[in-house]
């Protein structure tokens, strides 16, 4: 999100040489495909993957850009196959839509590492590493609930700015949020869906603020669109509520640490998973296991926990912000 740093922070890659697995092994060609970056998080995914791959002398990294939709990504992957990679790391536009590609690649003997957006079919991937969208909603709701309890608000007005509504991950996040709130007897008073961009974030937030003249808490799914959400809050001159962010951008973490505005917390969904995916793909290509685990092979599924960053722990996370 920051202007200065297009390169990922060092902390988002694993330093090569940290453990025994880091020693150069057989040459591995990793093919990588992620949707075209149109906002910070996806851009960070691609950058992290690239940087992580560059840190290994035994990895050859080939990316294909995935274009605008699932169909374009399928077409791009088709050409990637022709390059005969050892492992494919793939952040699909939509897990279900690209499931058939995963299957055919696996059948052709190319292990597929699915990043973030799950294939429904277990045979379609060798490894799935993803964030916890539902858990994000849960964490955000838990923070909101705790604050409300602390303030003694029994029927809080809670707003939500979601991301692109047609994506399943948005649905999961919202579901985790509303499910958890419901357990505390709370509900979302108004939910607007933006499109992961700052300008749509601003517009939806402006509408939301108008619809809820008084609000207690607001959860915004994505810190990148949060720039616009915060701008709208400033423009409306509102400060009676607090806001929870999502994903964990550097700017958001800094703002939380400084405690200067309504943004009090953010729940992580870290693009660092891309770095991990590359490391593990390399191990799969070299037929190695994870050195901290007893197993001789990399596990089949890894789900990152969604952590809650607040003023208290912000300094720990600063290095992970994108």
């Amino acid at each position: 999100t920051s202007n200065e740093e297009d390169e990922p922070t060092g902390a988002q890659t694993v330093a090569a040489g940290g453990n025994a697995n880091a020693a150069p092994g057989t040459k591995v060609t990793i093919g990588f495909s992620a949707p075209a970056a149109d906002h910070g998080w996806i851009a960070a995914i691609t950058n992290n993957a690239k940087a992580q791959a560059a840190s290994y002398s035994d990895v050859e990294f080939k990316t294909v850009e995935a274009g605008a939709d699932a169909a374009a990504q399928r077409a791009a992957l088709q050409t990637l196959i022709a390059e005969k990679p050892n492992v494919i790391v793939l952040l699909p536009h939509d897990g279900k839509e690209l499931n058939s590609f995963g299957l055919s690649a696996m059948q052709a003997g190319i292990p597929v590492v699915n990043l973030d957006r799950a294939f429904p079919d277990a045979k379609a991937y060798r490894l799935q590493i993803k964030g916890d969208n539902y858990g994000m909603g849960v964490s955000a709701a838990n923070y909101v609930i705790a604050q409300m309890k602390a303030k003694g608000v029994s029927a809080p007005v809670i707003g939500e700015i979601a991301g692109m509504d047609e994506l399943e991950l948005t649905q999961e996040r919202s579901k985790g949020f509303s499910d958890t709130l419901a357990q505390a007897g709370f509900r979302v008073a108004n939910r607007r869906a933006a499109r992961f961009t700052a300008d749509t974030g601003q517009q939806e937030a402006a509408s939301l603020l108008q619809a809820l003249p008084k609000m207690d808490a607001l959860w915004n799914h994505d810190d990148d669109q949060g720039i616009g959400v915060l701008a709208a809050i400033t423009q409306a001159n509102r400060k009676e509520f607090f806001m929870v962010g999502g994903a964990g951008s550097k700017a958001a973490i800094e703002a939380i640490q400084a405690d200067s505005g309504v943004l009090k917390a953010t729940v992580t969904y870290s693009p660092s998973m891309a770095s991990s995916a590359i490391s593990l793909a390399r191990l799969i290509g070299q037929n190695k296991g994870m050195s901290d685990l007893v197993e001789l092979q990399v596990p089949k599924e890894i789900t990152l926990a969604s952590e809650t960053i607040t003023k208290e722990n912000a300094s720990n996370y600063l290095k992970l912000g994108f």
Partner: protein
Amino acid sequence: MTAQAAPAPVKEPEKPAEKRSWWRDDATEPLRRNLGLVAVLIALIIIGIITRPDLYSDGTWVRNNIFTILELASVIGVVTVGMTFVIIGGGIDLSVGAIIALAGVWSTTLATQDYGAGGMIFCALAVGIGVGVVNGILISYGRLVAFIATLAMLVAARGLAAQISGKQTQVSGNTFINDIAANDFLGVPLLVYILAAVVAGGWVLLNRTTFGRRTVAVGGNVEAARLAGINVKRHTLLLYALSGLCCGIAAIMLTSQANSAQAAMANLYELDAIAAAIIGGTLLSGGRGTIIGSLLGVIVFSTITNLFAINNLSTEVQNMVKGGIIVAAVLVQQVQFKSLSLFISRNKLTTSN
């Protein structure tokens, strides 16, 4: 002229009335369309009042809400003014959203931000006009179909914006720029003044200057315009430059609202602007349209959005309802149109007899 006994050919005083009736019909059509849009607006507000009486009972809230709607309309409104000119002039500009993104991104690079607010505004306007001129050259001198040329520009400009921004959201650190969206003057948001100024300027340009009248000629009958000695190519070029200029202004406004710019900003604004212009009575084939109609079209759309927000409709229901409202809005204009013209013609009959 009717209802007269045939064998009384003497004393036919309705001749002057009839002569006038030559041009009876069409002159007031834009006015009636606009009245139709106002009716739609009123209906939307009434729906708002019915569904959220709690909010609408608060005077301050209502006042704020009007400004919220206008602010929401401001960026698209500015773009639509330029678009209206282009469409009246017989063209179309699909690249407006992309131009906004490119202008916004370019004016928020660190290098540009170093020059301060003046530098940023200059950069946005220059980029807007520059891209508009390229569109214009491709279309008028390169003789490309406007749809294709501006579609190509859409793709290319977004690509360039992504390249420049490194696909990052570029935060604007300039308080002057950021304050445009945050501040009021005499209780009215600055963005609303900008919209008003652009609309007023557009109206004067279209209705009171040779440029505007020639735009109608070029779009309405290009051969006639050519035979009247108008430099059609140069005029076409200027139209796209004007649209680009509006996009430059809109880029500053949007950057100010979002405190940032990125390559994906102003996504699909082209569709919104074209739809607003057409709802406002601009003929897609050129030669006819009004600035006021376009403005009303934009406001109708942002009022719909506002109505959805205050009623907390889910996205999918929003979309279904929105489709219905658009159709209804156009139908209302037609009903309005028909019944009024019927009324007028009946009126005419009684007065002329």
